[in-house]
């Protein structure tokens, strides 16, 4: 049970961070001037968004080793942490597609004047994104991004389908070994609820804190 929690947290944290990075990259790619990059980004998002995460899990666990050159695939199958690794890969790819869509809509919501101001002071494209566009985007998209991360955390439960020893898998293990599954499942449910709600809470606090520098001060009298 404790190991289950550890693995769940590990999967959730690693996939959240990696999907945030990958998602940002894809979102920027989709705004690129270079058509092949844009198309690739679009293709990525459509492919991953329209196919369930569970299928990707199964794919990376069962099919991926098969299509590798034979020796390599067997080595992977023998690797005891392979279920966890496959889970992380699958969930990262899956989540990144949603994250990139969120970031993209955030980027679109930054007024074009910001970009023009950055251009006319001579910032390069990367600098424009790094210092001007992305920081504003992240402040704007914090709520949907938080919701997405909660989803991703909950999705880690799907990894039991490929025997990654995470929390939900642990409860089923307990059920089949000791028939005390009811207690275990209750505990697990409570854990998911507490963590999800805390992520939500943290996002709300973070949002308030970040808003202080930009938005909520609108109401302040200025001179």
């Amino acid at each position: 049970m404790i190991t289950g929690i550890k693995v769940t947290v590990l999967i959730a944290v690693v996939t959240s961070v990696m999907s945030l990075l990958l998602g940002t990259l894809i979102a920027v790619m989709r705004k690129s001037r270079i058509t092949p990059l844009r198309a690739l980004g679009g293709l990525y998002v459509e492919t991953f968004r329209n196919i369930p995460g569970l299928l990707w899990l199964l794919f990376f666990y069962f099919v991926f080793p098969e299509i590798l050159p034979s020796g390599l695939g067997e080595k992977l199958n023998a690797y005891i942490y392979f279920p966890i690794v496959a889970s992380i890969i699958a969930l990262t790819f899956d989540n990144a597609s949603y994250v990139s869509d969120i970031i993209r809509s955030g980027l679109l919501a930054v007024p074009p004047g910001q970009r023009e101001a950055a251009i006319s002071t001579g910032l390069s494209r990367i600098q424009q994104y790094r210092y001007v566009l992305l920081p504003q985007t992240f402040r704007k998209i914090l709520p949907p991004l938080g919701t997405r991360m909660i989803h991703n955390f909950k999705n880690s439960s799907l990894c039991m389908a490929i025997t990654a020893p995470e929390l939900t898998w642990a409860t089923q293990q307990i059920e089949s070994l000791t028939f005390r599954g009811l207690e275990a499942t209750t505990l697990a449910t409570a854990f998911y609820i507490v963590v999800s709600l805390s992520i939500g809470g943290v996002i709300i606090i973070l949002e308030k804190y970040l808003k202080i520098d930009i938005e909520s001060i609108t109401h302040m009298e200025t001179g």
Partner: protein
Amino acid sequence: MDFLIEQFGNWKFYLIGAYPKGPLGGLSINIAIALLCMIISFFIGAIFGMGRLSCRRYISYPCIIYIEFVRATPALLLVFWFFLFIPSVLGTNISLFWSSVIALSIYSTAYQAEIVRGGILAVPRGQMEAALSSGMTRFQAARTVILPQAFRMMLPSFVSFFISLFKETSVIYIIGVIDLTQAGVIISQRQPDRMFASYLCMAIGFFVVCFSMSRVAKTLEKKVGILDLSSYRPTVCRTDLSLYPRGRGKSAA
């Protein structure tokens, strides 16, 4: 390429499972469950969504708790609850299909409730004021002015939610329902050397449904706009302008 074509020979199994000889399965069961849950949870969700907007705490708080708790729980765990434990507690036997439907309805009710709430909030306050001042009763105003507008604005969200619910139905594979995923896995186990092809078929099945629905959602979004719940910050609960009759409502934050 020919191994793919060979896989398409199994199309019937992918689409409807062993039906009519056996139970319905494959892609159609994903669609059936998603649709059924959508319909059930639309009505219950509407109640919870409007309940959450109530100024009376004994109505709104339970709704908030339900919505937030369910949204915080993985769908898979809900499915396990209804598959493993509730039947044994109640001493009844529910089929796999129905336990999936109930669990996923509970799940989607919470999300639909939020969509309904968002739709109602997106209708400008002035609409209620205008309707009331033209002499309508609150019920008339809600029925003829507020809800039709709200419903229009909810439509794209419903469609997008349907897509995510449809994808979520794949979890019932884990409890053994022969849905599209299970069907594909069964076939792939029968012919391990054709694994890739059968996964491709599953993927195509999900993709076609999701992709076409997402186009529908996009078109609707263009027509009616997108709900943005996060931009709404309620300050004071105005009983006199809410959907509900003036009562002992207290102002809530």
